[in-house]
């Protein structure tokens, strides 16, 4: 978010109008999140009121209490964090190695592999739910967190490799030569020089694997069928949907708890994210 470099002459009223429009759009875009948090804090009576006031006079933690007490919510939260954490670490390491291979070496089938990674990003993972379900069943992974971790590693890899390429490429080759002259072995260069340099890129890449894993709904629903102690957050959320009367306070409180970690993570890395995206798109 560097200062605007384009000194195009803009008439003052025009700019003010544009700024007013931007603020209005920002308010509209932020409104759903505001409403979610607000509703989570509203007492039950106000949520079930047809008034739908955009503020509350008496914030209450009742909905949150319901979420944390009635459900095994802490457990679900932990499961979600475990799955996302495992996927982020594993896919970052694997993608780092692969990205290094395809950017710093020339070998047969290199281009073919790159195209395969690109094509793999397009595979509709939802369509693979059926074969993966049987695969997980055959390996006894149904109802375990492994059934969520393994597929998500596979599905975040192609994009992660694709995105990391730009970061690995940006490390000057001279550095590698200098390291070799100093007698550093290939693996020493890889882990002690290249890895720290590419780390910002790894963080940016991780955002995507984290989000896609954390947000996953389909696999969580399909692969964890009977053992609810292995459920993740999206499932915990759905419990509050009832056929006759949805518990909106509970739904909004659970949604808030599920959204906040991603939001925090996102804001923390947004700068790297934007620059990383620039790199991925450019290449």
């Amino acid at each position: 978010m560097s200062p605007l470099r384009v000194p195009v002459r803009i008439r003052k009223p025009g700019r003010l109008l544009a700024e007013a429009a931007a603020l209005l759009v920002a308010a509209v875009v932020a409104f759903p999140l505001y409403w979610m948090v607000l509703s989570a804090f509203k007492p039950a009576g106000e949520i079930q009121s047809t008034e739908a006031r955009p503020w509350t006079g008496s914030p209450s933690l009742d909905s949150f209490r319901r979420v944390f007490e009635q459900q095994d919510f802490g457990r679900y939260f932990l499961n979600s964090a475990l799955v996302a954490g495992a996927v982020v670490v594993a896919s970052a390491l694997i993608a780092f190695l692969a990205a290094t291979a395809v950017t710093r070496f020339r070998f047969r089938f290199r281009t073919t592999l790159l195209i395969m990674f690109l094509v793999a990003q397009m595979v509709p993972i939802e369509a693979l739910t059926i074969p993966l379900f049987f695969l997980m069943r055959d390996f006894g992974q149904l109802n375990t967190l492994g059934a969520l971790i393994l597929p998500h590693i596979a599905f975040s890899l192609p994009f992660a490799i694709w995105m990391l390429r730009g970061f690995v490429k940006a490390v000057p080759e001279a550095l590698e030569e200098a390291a070799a002259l100093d007698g550093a072995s290939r693996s020493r260069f890889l882990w002690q020089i290249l890895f720290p340099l590419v780390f910002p890129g790894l963080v940016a890449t991780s955002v995507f694997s984290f989000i896609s894993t954390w947000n996953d709904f389909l696999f969580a629903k399909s692969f964890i069928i009977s053992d609810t102690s292995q459920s993740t957050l999206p499932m915990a959320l759905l419990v509050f949907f009832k056929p006759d009367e949805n518990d909106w306070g509970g739904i909004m409180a659970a949604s808030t708890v599920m959204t906040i970690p991603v939001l925090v993570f996102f804001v923390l890395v947004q700068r790297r994210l934007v620059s990383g995206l620039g790199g991925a798109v450019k290449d």
Partner: protein
Amino acid sequence: MTDGTKTDRKTDRTKAGRMTTRAAHLPRKGTEARVGAVPAGVRRGHPGWTPWLYLLPALVVLGGLLVYPIYQLGLISFLEYTQAQVSGGEPTSFQGLGNYSALFSDSQFWQVLLATVLFAAACVLATLAVGCALAVLLTRIRAVPRLALMLAALGAWATPAVTGSTVWVFLFDPDYGPVNRLLGLGDFSWTYGRYSAFALVLFEVVWCSFPFVMVTVYAGIKAIPSEVLEAAALDGASQWRTWRSVMAPMLRPILVVVTIQSIIWDFKVFTQIYVMTNGGGIAGQNLVLNVYAYQKAFASSQYSLGSAIGVVMLLILLAVTLVYLRLLRRQGEEL
């Protein structure tokens, strides 16, 4: 790029660290110049098995959990595979194209396919229009409103699809939602009618996917040399004209990427439809291919029909990808 060779490692490291982030910002011109001299960052001499060693974990994971399932998906779509076969009660039998002919003669399939294509097209167009318009808007305003819009967009982007869906349903709830009250719609139920339900899902999809387009296109616009835009302004070009004749052509590579990404995402929409229309709407009026395949497989245990739908989706997205690759190649991208 080459001047840091002889300095000690410490400065080299910080320098390169800065370069990593800076290089990502560079417009395409810079990359090409670097590529021209020596293939960037490629080790000379015979690499031997090292690259394959590095690739091994990735290839194992992708082979086992992506390629093999795709093969399985294709295989199941040719078999008779229902609850009886799953539990081992009956042997699986080869059906040839039987599942596909059953699918293609089902009018619901065609209806769902049409709905998927139209819905995805509407989502892509709306997302791109909103994203590009806001990206241009971002370049015309000062830092504070820009930050406000960026943060709001990041919030929408970061929101998980499940929670985004629940919140939007609640916003449009006929009894307790603020939107109907604001618009004076009374207790109009958005999820009851087919088109209003699709519209509701479309709002949510655009809300959570325009930020990607906006941020990416904004980064692209910032990479356009300011002289070009100044010249356009001096020549008295209008905002729309500047976008159409100057920005859009220069941003073409970026626009291609965001368009293709959007097509792929929106064609695969699952969570939003499933949560917001409660599994595909009343009598399946809001089904899209993904949800349709899921319902066929896991709700009615017709795994082979579900797989056949999956194969159809896979083929459509493969076609989109091939178009994408062709476009990339025509732009002379080096992989």
